[in-house]
């Protein structure tokens, strides 16, 4: 087996700017307010993924999952550390594809496929399969700004899954799809998983991670706190468990009925 993704000590820092105009900046500095603040979205994360592994990435909102995916995809560059990947990468980042709102679905399809590395001939060959899978019929020639969010996600997912990539990234893409489509997508992802594609799957749905992945990474505030391959006795189940029940014992007695009812 060869290494598919190699992430070493990766740190990504975001700058939050509070004041954008000169006037605001002047006022803020007179009042001695901070002009900007640094924020570590991904903090010293290292792991290695073998070709063909299917990795579930879990964590709360804002724990750095999407940022990590963007770094692996190459949309962002890490501030520290290095990322190496092997082969063609396709996927969807942060619910939805990079579509241009004024272009039609067809034009966006060609552009998106080209950016993910498909040639014109390859796109033409797979065109029907992509359109069939997305199942948006006559809306192919409508600007995507008129699409419903579900149609948007359908087309984006359909293009990405047909790229024949070596690494496939799926970041909560299917959150807006309806149930039959979600099912179709999961089946398709199982299919490419069987073909030996490395999969990175971000989801909050434990059951689906359990079925799809053979390894789980848990991110918390930018730290990789659980890696089922590194942790002793780690498993997908363990990762879900870790995220779910970890500090149940140090939780205050205030765990009221309302919360209990939730579980």
């Amino acid at each position: 087996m060869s290494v598919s993704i190699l992430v070493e000590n990766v740190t990504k820092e975001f700058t939050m700017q509070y004041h954008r105009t000169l006037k605001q900046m002047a006022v803020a500095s007179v009042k001695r307010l901070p002009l900007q603040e640094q924020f570590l979205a991904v903090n010293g994360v290292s792991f290695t993924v073998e070709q063909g592994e299917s990795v579930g990435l879990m964590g709360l909102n804002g724990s750095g999952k999407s940022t990590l995916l963007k770094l692996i995809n190459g949309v962002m560059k890490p501030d520290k550390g290095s990322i190496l990947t092997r082969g063609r990468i396709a996927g969807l980042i942060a619910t939805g594809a990079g579509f241009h709102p004024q272009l039609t679905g067809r034009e966006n399809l060609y552009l998106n496929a080209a950016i993910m590395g498909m040639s014109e001939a390859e796109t033409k060959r797979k065109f029907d399969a992509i359109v069939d899978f997305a199942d948006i019929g006559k809306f192919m020639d409508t600007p995507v700004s008129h699409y419903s969010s579900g149609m948007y996600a359908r087309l984006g997912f359909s293009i990405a899954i047909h790229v024949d990539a070596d690494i496939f990234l799926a970041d909560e893409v299917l959150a807006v799809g309806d149930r039959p489509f979600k099912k179709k997508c999961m089946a398709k992802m199982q299919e490419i998983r069987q073909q030996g594609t490395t999969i990175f799957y971000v989801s909050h749905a434990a059951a689906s991670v359990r079925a799809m992945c053979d390894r789980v990474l848990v991110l918390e505030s930018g730290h990789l706190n659980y890696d089922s391959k590194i942790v002793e006795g780690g498993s997908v189940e363990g990762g879900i468990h870790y995220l779910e029940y970890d500090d149940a014992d140090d939780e205050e007695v205030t765990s009221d009925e309302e919360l209990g009812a939730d579980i």
Partner: protein
Amino acid sequence: MKAADKRESQLVEADRRPNAAKRARRLLANNADAMPVVEAAGPTQAREVQAELVDPSPRGGLLEVFQQRYVLKLIVSRQLAQMYAASLLGLAWSYVQPAMRFGVYYVVMGFILNLHEGVPFFAIHLFTGIVVVHYFGETWNGGTRSIWGNKALVQKMRMPREIFPVASMLVAAYHTLPQILVLTLFCVLAGWHLTWGAVAAGLLGMLILVTFALALALFFSALNVFFRDFQNIVQTIMQFMHFLVPMMYPFSRVWSQHEAHPILYNLYMANPVAQSVILLQRFFWRPIIDDPSTLRGRQFPPDMWERGLITLVVCLVLLYLAQRFFSRVEGKFPERL
């Protein structure tokens, strides 16, 4: 140390949110069956990937843009389609604007201010300048806005981002080409006697123009991501660019001041666009004049060639520096858009 304690200390260090477990359980409860479960149907095959481990983010810069010609072609045609979406005249707009400008300048400068005196074929003299400035302005303006205007793609897709300023340059070229054809047609009708000197000047002028415009487009497209003021600054500069090149007045008027105001003269001549206009006038306008005695004063600077070559080298250096700057800040684009 017990395993639990170890993890405890690790967690404190990693500043886990205090209510993390609570939130996670809530989320999980809400999402437990949000995704349908599909079990794997068979064994996994091994997949051989014939590629090296590489950095996923693009670092090839402009070179990579020209390697991905198919993507570039799609982006250019996309920008063209987008420009003329919901416009009745469509591509005709790229004729209307220069034509109007030409008409106004020709009448106001030529007849009212009488600047065409001593300039035979003043129309071609003027139109050469308009074409050059139009191309330059469109590349610079469009390039500056290009990254911001394509943020949907920049945020989500991996690609060499230089592709957007380059696409603006090609879009500008696409709009300028018909104007050049019109200009050539008129030159031929007026009796164009091309010489090797003129062709060399034309090539040099175009090279200066393209490298300078691309360097500025690259540099300002990156700056504009961080400070949106730059697109307004560019527009403001472009408004008086027409007056900073010798097109509505002959170069002889500038030359006549070079002894009295050497610094101003050199500043004027340092502008690569002005030099490009002069060189292209040498190509289009000068060869149609049969009788040089009708010309008054000096039509071209005495050091036109030396200056042109030096400017070309300077523009290439600027392009290199712009690329360096672009690569350095590019990693911050997705978070700033």
